């Protein structure tokens, strides 16, 4: 299994509060991704990174920001959480864009 961890695994927060999710990898892969999974939508790409300090938007990036200051860590921040951001968030990594993506265990976020 690829060495990917996500923290926290579960979080309950209130509308309007900032939330940061962390993805940590031990594989030294260049690419890292954040997805959200919702019923009826499958997995949708939020943001991705192709190197330290290099990030780009995905399909559903509004309300989210990311940062990558080290190869191994990719942070997803909800600046002001809303109930529509209640979801399961998955981090993924790959050696290159052409390579298979490997997923972390997920973070279940509930925004009340």
């Amino acid at each position: 299994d690829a060495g990917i961890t996500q923290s926290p695994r579960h979080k309950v927060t209130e509308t309007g509060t900032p939330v940061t999710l962390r993805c940590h990898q031990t594989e030294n892969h260049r690419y890292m991704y954040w997805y959200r999974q919702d019923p009826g939508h499958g997995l949708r790409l939020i943001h991705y990174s192709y190197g330290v300090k290099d990030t780009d938007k995905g399909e559903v990036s509004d309300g989210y920001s990311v940062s990558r200051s080290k190869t191994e860590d990719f942070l997803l921040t909800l600046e002001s959480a809303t109930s529509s951001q209640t979801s399961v968030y998955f981090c993924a990594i790959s050696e290159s864009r052409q390579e298979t993506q490997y997923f972390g265990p997920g973070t279940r976020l509930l925004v009340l």
Partner: protein
Amino acid sequence: DQQVKQNSPSLSVQEGRISILNCDYTNSMFDYFLWYKKYPAEGPTFLISISSIKDKNEDGRFTVFLNKSAKHLSLHIVPSQPGDSAVYFCAASDSNEKLTFGTGTRLTIIP
């Protein structure tokens, strides 16, 4: 606009029989297709993939078929085993190499 569609939300199959999961896509620029398997409370795990230059790829009990003219791919699992019970996601990528996922099919293998 759902570019990758899995029209069957669920499927039940007897143990030992063949499971066939289907996926349709609308974007003719997709050239690489993957299947992921997901157990509850875990992340998706890669299962098998196929390039658009092929029409079949086989890996043990798993075979993926691609019909480009119909924009359709399918995953065959034979024989089906209880451990195959999971949600299966179809995904596709184009030259931008971003993955577009389907909504998933929940497969239940009946002992």
